């Protein structure tokens, strides 16, 4: 077989599958960019008119559009934009371009985005570091003591936290942990020169809020994936080999349960990056979510596009990661016949 397929057949099937997924991810990202660009193109309204006001003379608007490059044909602008992204240049923000024609105070999108993205990733990592192990621990122990009071409590509590809206959880935490006990600050408006531990301290409440919001989903999937396997003949075999309940779950069920669990984890981690605007607003946290919302209200198209591309890339990357883990935890794929 190997000599027939050339180089490709020599690759381990897992490597091949991962490369395939990676390729698919890139194609998806390309399609997303296309949809993103064209849908913004079709949005009603015009940045020129929005900035200059309805009363502006058509010539002024035209001149303004020309300055921003908005008069060029769509495909030209698309490839210009795409080419820019590939070289790390997302264009310049529209805002800051005065209609007065004075000095150009606009900034590159990258410059706006980068610190915000760093903040968002910091918050997401903090929430992930707390919530993923917590969810796994709760899920595994709930499966272990299935049907017990502990199981029911964990289920009820996680369900309660997921059922409240995020802002409510956030305000509740502020009330208890900030107003009453003064343990943590209620605002997390971190600046660029805050040191690491200060950052951790300031972001504690938003991270905790996010943890409470996402832990239920991951915990329940962990529990369900393990329980789903408990009826398998090989679990009964393990019992008949004298394995204890925890040995059965950790050594015999969990290794076969990773695929569904990591899919849900990836989904929730992606949410931590792209879906936290409410939490950012409540804690005045300077993340990407707020930036995007601001950009949408001011019709700052390059910034919106930049944020959206980052969100799409996050989703694709995390799902790719989940796929890879699913593949390498499946012995049928990892060790072909």
């Amino acid at each position, binding site marked *: 077989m190997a000599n027939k397929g050339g180089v490709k057949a020599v690759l381990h099937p897992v490597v091949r599958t991962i490369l395939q997924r990676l390729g698919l991810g890139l194609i998806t990202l390309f399609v997303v960019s296309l949809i993103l660009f064209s849908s913004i193109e079709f949005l009603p309204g015009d940045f020129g008119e929005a900035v200059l006001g309805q009363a502006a003379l058509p010539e002024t608007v035209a001149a303004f559009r020309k300055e921003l490059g908005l008069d060029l044909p769509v495909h030209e602008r698309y490839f210009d934009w795409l080419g820019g992204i590939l070289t790390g240049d997302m264009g310049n923000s529209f805002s800051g371009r005065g209609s007065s024609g004075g000095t150009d105070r606009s900034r590159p999108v990258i410059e706006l985005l980068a610190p915000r993205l760093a903040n968002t990733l910091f918050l997401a990592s903090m929430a992930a570091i707390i919530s993923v192990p917590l969810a796994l621990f709760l899920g595994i122990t709930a499966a272990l003591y299935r049907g017990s009071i502990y199981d029911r409590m964990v289920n009820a509590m996680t369900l309660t936290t997921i059922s409240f809206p995020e802002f409510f959880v956030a305000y509740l935490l502020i009330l208890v942990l900030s107003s009453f006990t003064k343990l943590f600050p209620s605002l997390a408006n971190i600046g660029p020169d805050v040191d690491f531990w200060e950052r951790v301290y300031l972001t504690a409440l938003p991270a905790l809020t996010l943890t409470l919001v996402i832990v239920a989903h991951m915990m329940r999937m962990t529990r369900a994936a393990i329980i789903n396997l408990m009826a398998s*003949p090989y679990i*009964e075999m393990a019992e*008949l*080999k*004298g394995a204890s309940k925890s040995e059965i779950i950790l050594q015999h069920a969990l290794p076969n349960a990773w695929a569904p669990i990591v899919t849900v984890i990836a989904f929730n981690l992606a949410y931590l990056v792209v879906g936290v605007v409410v939490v950012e607003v409540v804690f005045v946290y300077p993340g990407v979510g707020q930036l995007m919302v601001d950009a949408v209200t001011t019709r700052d198209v390059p910034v919106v596009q930049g944020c959206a591309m980052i969100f799409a890339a996050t989703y694709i990357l995390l799902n790719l990661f989940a796929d890879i883990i699913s593949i390498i935890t499946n012995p049928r794929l990892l*060790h072909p016949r």
Partner: protein
Amino acid sequence: MSTERSGQKGDLLLEMKDIVIDGYSDDRWHEIVKGVDVTLRRGEIMGLIGESGAGKSTLGLAAMGFARPGCRITSGSIMFDGIDLMKVSEAERRALRGSRIAYVAQSAAASFNPAHQLIEQTVESTVRRGIKPEAEARADARKLYRDLQLPNPDSIGDRYPHQVSGGQLQRVMTAMAMSPRPDLIIFDEPTTALDVTTQVEVLASMRRIVEHYNTAAIYITHDLAVVAQMADVIKVLRYGETIEDAETRKMLAQPEKAYTRSLWSVRSIEKPEEESEDIVLKVDHVDASYTGSAKVLDDVTIEVPRGHTVAIVGESGSGKSTTARAITGLLPPTKGQVLFNGKPLPPLLKERSIDQLQKIQMIYQMADTAMNPRQTVRDIIGRPLEFYLGLRGRERDQRLLELLEMIELDETFIDRLPAELSGGQKQRICIARALAASPELIICDEVTSALDQIVQKGILELLLRLQRELGLTYIFITHDIATVKAISDQIVVMLEGRVVEQGMKSEILSPPYPEYTKLLLSSVPEMNPDWLTGLLAERERESSSNP
């Protein structure tokens, strides 16, 4: 002979007295084992035999102090080497499992954890219990693999369950049970899922190793011929009660109870063969393939005479079922054609006319999965009546009742769901569904393999009667030679996608045999406790005389 065990051969090892086990179904507890006694001595093998639902597995597991979810041991005593399993704590019972009592399950493929290497699983309990250190246990496992005549004994343990065959897995599982050198092994139908040719090898290696280490065993099966090779004593169970207890030779020579005799009843059906020139179906030089490259059928030609039965035999992977798929159009041939009443059938199912579809019907091995669990018998049988014959309302119900009568079920079955039927009744409904289309040819794919001997006999007799009355033609796919003897006129032997032999039953089943047919026939266990020993000795002689 092993000397590391305390106790001598012949000492009492397991004594179960008046065991009662309840099972939970239909919202209440039922007794499924009703006061059974078991006495087993060191080094002794007891065969536990009976049809499904007799409580064999439940009783076997109870010997480990284990009850499946939905079962509970309600009374009786289980003394294992002086330990009362009913009295000690769960932790103490667990400590015995996988160290002093081991279990070999029916489906090795499902009972190995797909995520771990075979050798890890083989030594798991031995190492956990501290019986041997890991390295020593692994070396011993490789030795056991060699004893069990597994190929590449030094490296097979590094493989994962999906990488080895079913017969090999079953032997690895025996090694796994043997690894802690238990006093007792429960074999729960360990060869039921295997081909006859594989079964012989697995039986031989299991017997050798159990004898070698002087291990006591309970061997659970529904095949009396198999248990005759393995067991010193046999216990026959039915509906959770002991029917008969005897030494193997005595039981086979003179079974006392009628029920015991009925356990080998399929072997008593005899059908005189008939020749015929009237060919209803011809598979004409057919090649077929799933992937496009490797042929699974290679130049297969089979002629099926009208009103008669052609049995296709062979081990799994020989192309039996694929031939059926080619005939029904589920897998279009890559070469050759299928002629029905002299006219070629379109290769693809969807290109065939309703009329062509109607004439060829199928019955499957798993009646369970071949019926929609949410449809009643009325819907299941009524559908082909509507689809093929356009019967509606009263007419349809009239015909439904006739069909039920033909399969010897009464009208009370008409509104039942499949879950409310027994295995044999389900298969009867599947037969009625095939009959509803008024077919000329019915392809029966292992239709009795999942059934007990007695139920098998009923189904085979029903099929024979329907053939006589309706002039049906059968293609009977099976790996069970007893069934072939019972029902066929002609036999086709397949191996690796080719027809290696075909002809009238009497020709095929009498010498001289081609090599493969001989292997297949000689592998069918006989109701003779010396059969396996004799067979192995003969094969040994042959292989040494012509290496």
